[in-house]
């Protein structure tokens, strides 16, 4: 009824291989993107931009990167926070050390260095996998935490150990209000989302998925595990690195290594699990969920406590947040291992057939 492909004939390979095969889907997504660019700026206030929308966009981008590695290539990583940190600090160093460095090039340079580091720490994945690899990637996390705290070069020998950037400017467009920051991040997210979507549909994406599903079998049919795994690490850390650079430059403005601690790594992994492993759409759902849930709980729990006549402290709220996160992770893994994205695709499928379920 809502949603039917009757009469939409594919007469060329091009139209057969579109990202969204059904015209209604295509229009809906285009409308959504247009709304994000044009509609949201009118609706959202400054708090919305700062607390929800900008973090959501940047963390979606990071989750996208992690999803490529964990969801598409099956290489579990607990070191994503470190790659974000590398992106942020190296973008900072390129930005301040090279005179007249354009902002966007600096951000991409952050991604480039994150790629190098990611590939370096991805080398063990050639020999170990699964659980051992999870521990190996923790090495990246701890090493980077230490390096950015102790090695003065990274922070430009700043005595406080934190770094800051200001007066962001791209192509003569000064990015200083929350709205402009939002739009800037949105552009990045749309471009990278499109690139990632096309990448996972292409030959390399299929190689990653083959490695994920069974790496020995993949090797037997002629997929080079070295190439597939390292490319997944490279692409993933590039995106995560750019997200880290955006997080530092655009969202925080000034930051220290604690902004990219191991908790950030776990948070990104949770986004991927809850949103849906192996799904580009899932990264957005997961990020939205994880960004909004704490804000919601912070508002909701004290209000609920007031209603019941108990006052709930901030500590209690944060502990409850921990418990709810933990329970949700387990619940999702048991009930819906493919995450929110699966629910989305089930809903789409049902709408397509409605009102005749067969």
């Amino acid at each position, binding site marked *: 009824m809502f949603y039917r492909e009757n009469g939409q004939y594919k007469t060329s390979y091009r139209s057969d291989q579109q990202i969204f095969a059904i015209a209604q889907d295509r229009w809906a997504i285009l409308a959504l993107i247009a709304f994000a660019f044009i509609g949201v700026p009118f609706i959202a206030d400054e708090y919305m931009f700062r607390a929800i929308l900008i973090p959501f966009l940047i963390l979606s981008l990071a989750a996208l990167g992690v999803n490529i590695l964990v969801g598409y290539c099956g290489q579990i990583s607990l070191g994503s926070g470190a790659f974000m940190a590398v992106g942020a600090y190296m973008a900072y160093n390129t930005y301040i050390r090279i005179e007249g460095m354009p902002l966007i090039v600096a951000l991409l340079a952050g991604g480039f260095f994150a790629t190098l580091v990611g590939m370096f*720490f991805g080398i*063990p994945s050639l020999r170990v996998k699964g659980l051992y690899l999870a521990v*190996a990637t923790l090495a990246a996390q*701890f090493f980077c935490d*230490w390096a950015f705290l102790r090695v003065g070069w990274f922070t430009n020998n700043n005595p406080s150990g934190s770094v800051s950037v200001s007066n962001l400017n791209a192509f003569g467009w000064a990015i200083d209000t929350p709205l402009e920051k939002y739009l800037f991040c949105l552009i990045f997210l749309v471009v990278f989302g499109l690139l990632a979507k096309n990448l996972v549909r292409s030959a390399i994406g299929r190689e990653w998925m083959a490695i994920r599903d069974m790496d020995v079998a993949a090797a037997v049919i002629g997929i080079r595990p070295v190439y597939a795994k390292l490319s997944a690490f490279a692409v993933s850390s590039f995106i995560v690195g750019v997200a880290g650079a955006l997080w530092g430059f655009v969202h925080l403005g000034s930051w220290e290594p604690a902004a990219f601690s191991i908790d950030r790594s776990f948070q990104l992994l949770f986004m991927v*699990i809850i949103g849906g492993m192996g799904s580009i759409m899932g990264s957005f759902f997961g990020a939205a969920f994880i960004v909004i849930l704490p804000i919601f709980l912070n508002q909701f729990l004290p209000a609920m406590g007031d209603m019941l006549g108990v006052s709930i402290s901030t*500590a209690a709220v944060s502990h409850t*947040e921990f418990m*709810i996160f933990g329970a949700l992770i387990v619940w999702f893994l048991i009930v819906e291992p493919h995450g929110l994205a699966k629910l989305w695709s089930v809903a789409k499928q049902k709408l397509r057939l409605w009102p005749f379920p067969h």
Partner: protein
Amino acid sequence: MAFFLEALLGGLMAGMLYALVALGFVLIFKASGVFNFAQGAMVLFAALAMARFAEWVPEWLGINDKFLGNLIAFVLAGAIMFVLAWLIERLVLRHLVNQEGVTLLMATLGITYFLDGLGQTIFGSDIYKIDVGMPKDPVFLFDSVFPGGVLVNLEDVYAACIAALLVVVLSLFFQKTGTGRALRAVADDHQAAQSIGIPLNRIWVIVWFVAGITALVAGIIWGSKMGVQFSLTTVALRALPVIILGGLTSVPGAIIGGLIIGVGEKLSEVYLGPYVGGGIEIWFAYVLALVFLLFRPQGLFGEKIIDRV
């Protein structure tokens, strides 16, 4: 020389404690194939329970005897760990049978977060003391051999002895009892064990309970050394490279790995740290394990990993 020995001994003692935490990981991995990331949360949870019960029990029952109070607290904390093991089996593992290792790992990550929140909600989030009467005085050994002697913390010695005792008890339990044999059978092959009538679910509860008890012991030792607080969970993160080094499935591996990591950390901090800015304890173990993985992916004593299509 005396200084080197001191560092070495300190490393060995710390390593013994790492080994104790690592043992919990290995036990669970051996018997259920679950890489239990929640071991650190279990250590914190158990230690919190112990510390708080040791405070509460004398109030409730009016006991003044410290030993009796601690004993009751220990039993209560142990009981809580049992309930926890049962709940985890009931609510989580039962539904994830035959899933991939990575899925199970992420489930234990969820358990970690849940336990961290729950423990601090029930028991509070301040710093608590555990006082089981471990001596705190340092002693000097080998006075005659080196000038000044070698400084040894008596507390560490006791801790090492307790850890060693626990290892012996666990090995006996695994080797000599019927339950231990069933555990080993489950570890070898879930399906085969099930087909000869070993109840998988009960075995898992037992294993998680045993891991809970090791967590409790580790928590008490660490807690009485530096107080019980949230940072205790990082102990588990420090113990992860230990099992990588020793091999995921090997109890002796956990111990030897623990000792190597403990000594390596201490010596690297003392002799290498000053040149690179210090604080390298945090990552040294990980990088050591990482390098080691490249040459021997299954660890020192781990079983060789064979992949079949």
